[in-house]
Each structure stands twice: as C-alpha cells, then as structure tokens.
C-alpha cells in the first residue's frame, strides 16, 4: 500500500472528472428538469404525467411485463438450472456455454429473429394455417405477447446462470432427505429448495426485472408504436413532441428502479460476506 495522496489523486482524478462531466452532471441536470417549472421546485410535472391515461397505461404495462417476464424466467430458470446441475461435469460446462452464448449476440439481431418467426408469413403462422387452426394469419407481432416473448428470450440466460450457482451450493443430501421424510415435490421445492436458493433467485430476478423495465430494442422492434414501454415512450416524446419534461419524469422513474434493484443486490452481497 503506497501512502502518497497526491499521486493517488493524480491517477484517479482523470477518470472521476471524466465520468462526472460526461455522465453525472448531465444526468442530474436532466433529472432536475422534471422538478422545475417556471423556476420553482414542484411536482406538477409528475402530476401531469400520471394524469394522462396513455402515460399511466405505459407505466403499468412496463411494470406488468417486467413482473411477468421475471416470474416466467424464474419458473423456467429453476427447471433448466436443475436439469443443468444434474449433468456430468463436461456436459454441464458445454450446456452453460450454450445458455450464455445468446448474451454475446447483438440484441438487435436476437430480437429481429422474432420478426421472422412471429410475422405474418413466419413459422408460427404457417404452422397454424397448415394445421387448420386459422384461415388468415394471426397478428402476433406488435402485441404485448411478442414483446413478452422477446424480453423473456433476452433475459432468461441471466436467471438460469444465477440459479445454477445457487443450486450448486445446495447441500447434496437436502432433497433426498426431504423426500425420505415424506415430502412431495411441491413441498420439497417450497420448504427446502426455495429458502436455500433465495439469494440466487433474487439476484436473477433483479437482473431480469430491471433489464425488462429498461429495455428499448425489444419493445421498439416487436411492439412498435402500438405497444409502448417507458423507454420507447421516452424516445417518442422527445423525437415527436420535443417534450423533455416527460422524458425527465420517465428518466427519474427508470433510475429509481435501477438504483433500488442495485442496492438490493449490494445488500445481499454484503450480507453473504458477513456470514
């Protein structure tokens, strides 16, 4: 450990000043814009924002899709993570690699694939028509369902990875012991697995929830202007109406959500270090 404070500051300050000027100050100024109307501090921009039915609908839809994606990712994630940890070591490594692989691919490319699959002439519609379930193509693109599917595919890997590391720390005898003592599979999950992997599912859940809440590409491609979420609404307000006050309100909502999720993760991390 070197003691020279001047040297330490000279090394660290360029990065800190850069992040402060390019990032911190502009973001704070943008956020303050939503609290200032005619040179006085007020919440009227927030009252105005939530008094409009469209804004309320977008806010609620963003929360709803975020929650729905998180719950489904947790259910599928547990099944997938269980299956993966039960594999022999070599196969396990390859499987984890395959689960992580989509994270490396551009989200634009990944989301665009769903246009090919869910579009009017896509696989799903061709299959439905071939089986005879529908005569005309079903509209799936530009619905909440399409956005939901896109978000789930985008963020499921994060949940699976978090749950794999949680399940690997589960004592090997815990599940057989509970089974021998007469618990059914549902009881085993609720009373044994869930409490012991709570941390993993909370970490995965926070990543999936904040990721879905703050997604731009998926709702932009698969939802269009019909299924707006907070970020696509923000982009539309700025580019179509030059409405920076609404943009500031949305920015504040998104930042509060992200910071709340982040501090939850941090507190979990420190709680684990203490024990």
């Amino acid at each position, binding site marked *: *450990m*070197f003691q*020279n*404070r001047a*040297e*330490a500051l000279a*090394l*660290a300050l*360029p*990065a*800190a000043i*850069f*992040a402060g*000027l*390019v*990032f*911190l*100050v*502009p*973001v704070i*100024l*943008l956020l303050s814009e939503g609290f200032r109307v005619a040179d006085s501090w007020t919440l009227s921009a927030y009252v105005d924002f939530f008094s409009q039915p469209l804004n309320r609908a977008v806010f609620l839809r963003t929360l709803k899709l975020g929650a729905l994606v998180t719950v489904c990712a947790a259910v599928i994630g547990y*099944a*997938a993570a*269980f*299956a993966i940890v039960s*594999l022999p070591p070599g196969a396990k490594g390859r499987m984890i690699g*395959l*689960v992580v*692989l*989509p994270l*490396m*691919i*551009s989200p*634009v*490319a*990944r989301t*665009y*694939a*769903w*246009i*090919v699959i869910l*579009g009017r002439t*896509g*696989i799903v519609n061709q299959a439905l028509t071939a089986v005879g379930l529908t005569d005309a193509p079903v509209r799936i693109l530009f619905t909440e369902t399409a956005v939901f599917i896109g978000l789930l*595919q985008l963020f*499921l*890997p994060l949940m*699976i990875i978090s749950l794999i590391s949680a399940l690997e720390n589960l004592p090997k005898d815990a599940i057989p012991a509970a089974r021998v003592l007469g618990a059914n599979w549902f009881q085993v999950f609720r009373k044994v697995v869930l409490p012991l992997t709570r941390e993993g599912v909370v970490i995965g859940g926070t990543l999936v929830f904040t990721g879905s809440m*703050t997604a*731009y*590409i998926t709702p932009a491609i698969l939802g269009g202007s019909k299924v707006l979420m907070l970020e696509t609404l923000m982009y539309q307000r*700025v580019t179509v109406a030059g409405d*920076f006050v609404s*943009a500031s309100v949305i*920015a504040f909502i*998104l*930042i509060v959500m*992200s*910071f709340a999720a982040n501090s939850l993760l941090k507190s979990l991390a420190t709680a684990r270090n203490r024990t």
Partner: protein
Amino acid sequence: MTMQRLFAPVTLALVLIFLIGPFLVIVAASFSAGDTLAFPPQGLSFKWILKVFTVESFRQSFVTSMFLAIGGTFAALLLGIPASYAMSRYKLPFAETVRGVVSAPIIVPGIIVGLALLRYFVVPIGLSITLALFLAHTALVLPYAVRVVSASLNNLRSDIEEAAVLLGSSRLGAFFRVVLPNIRGGILSAFILGFVTSFNQVPVSLFLSGPGVRTLPVDMLGYMEIVFDPSIAALSALLAFLSVGIVFAAERFLGFSRYV
C-alpha cells in the same frame, strides 16, 4: 420414474430451442433466394449476404461502430487503468466515491445517458456528433474497464512491485515493468468485453446519432422499418458470428471467463 428421467433432457431441449433457435432461423433466412423475409427460406443463395456489403449506409455505420468500439474502449482503459491502480494500491481519499462515480454509467439506463449528454453537454458546447458518440461510448465502457482491471490487480500480489521500488526502480518503472506484464490478460479481457458492449449498444447512441453519423445497430433499426428483405437477417447473422467468434477466441486464448 420414467417421467423424472425424461424431465431433464426435455426441459433442456425446450430451453435451448427457445434460446438458440431464433439465431438458427436468422442464419437460415439469410441464405434465402426469395425477395421477402420468410422461413423456411425459398431456395438457397448468397445474394442477401453479399448485398449487405454493398449497402453504403451499412458500410459507413460499420466503420463508425468499429471506431467507437475500439477508440472508446481504448480511451476507457487509459482512464480506467490508472484509476483502478490508485484504488487498489494507494490510500485514495474518497475511494468509495470515486468508485461510485466511475461505475455509475453501468446502472443508469443507456437512453438516459444519451439524452442527458446530448442536452447538457453536446449541444451547449457545440460538439460534433462523432465526438459526442465517442465520449458516450467511453463513459459506457469505463465501468467495465475499472471492474475487470481492478479484479486482476487485486489478484496480483502487491509486494513484488514494492520490492521493485525498494530495489531502486521508480514507481512508474515498477508499474510498466512489473505490474503491467502481469495484468495483460485482464486488460485484454477488459478490452474485449468493452468492445462487444460498445459495438452492440443501442440506447446510448439513439439520441446522439445524427444525419450521416450512426452506429451500425441504430442504422439497422432504421433500415428494418423501411425495408422488409432478408438483408437485415443476413447482417444480424454476420454480426452474431463476429461477436461469438471474438468471445470464443478470447476464452480459448485468454481464459476470458476468469476475468468477467
């Protein structure tokens, strides 16, 4: 009992189809000979893959994205390596505040960073679009650079550089001759992580892109609203192979996953 034995393979197959399947569909669609986007593809041809290289705006935005990903990550490392070194080897005053400020861009959604930068930095000062994008991408990659370099500095024993200083080397000489060669893998990993993050990033660049200067993913978003041919599928497939190839090579030669 058979149901339980089937559970694992069936679950994994379904999850993999859901996660990887769309990617395979994109690859297949990009070899189509037809003029509209369809799966299964009509006939087999390379015409859409070749067409990608002839679209002028894709060529320009690819160069822009490459410049931002390489230049931005390089700048982030120039700022991030000394800062990480100060935080790991010195008694830095307000170390936690500094760490918080340099890592904050990772928590705040990119679209907000882009809008704030545009409205309160780029417009008042009158910066060019390219420079604005460069600053935004540097800020975006900085947290990753600091995190990965800090991790590899913390894994390196600090007494060897103290020994070098005691034996008469200057502090700077000890850094370049003792520390830097030992954290090379971490720095390269940070570079690759930063490159992939910056190259795939959309929301930060959304507001900052202007007439003539766009990043590749933003250009693709605009293009796909107007044109419905398989060229975006072809480009998506090419980009996917590029990112996966880079990460795979990094894992192979550097043991990438040890650092990130």
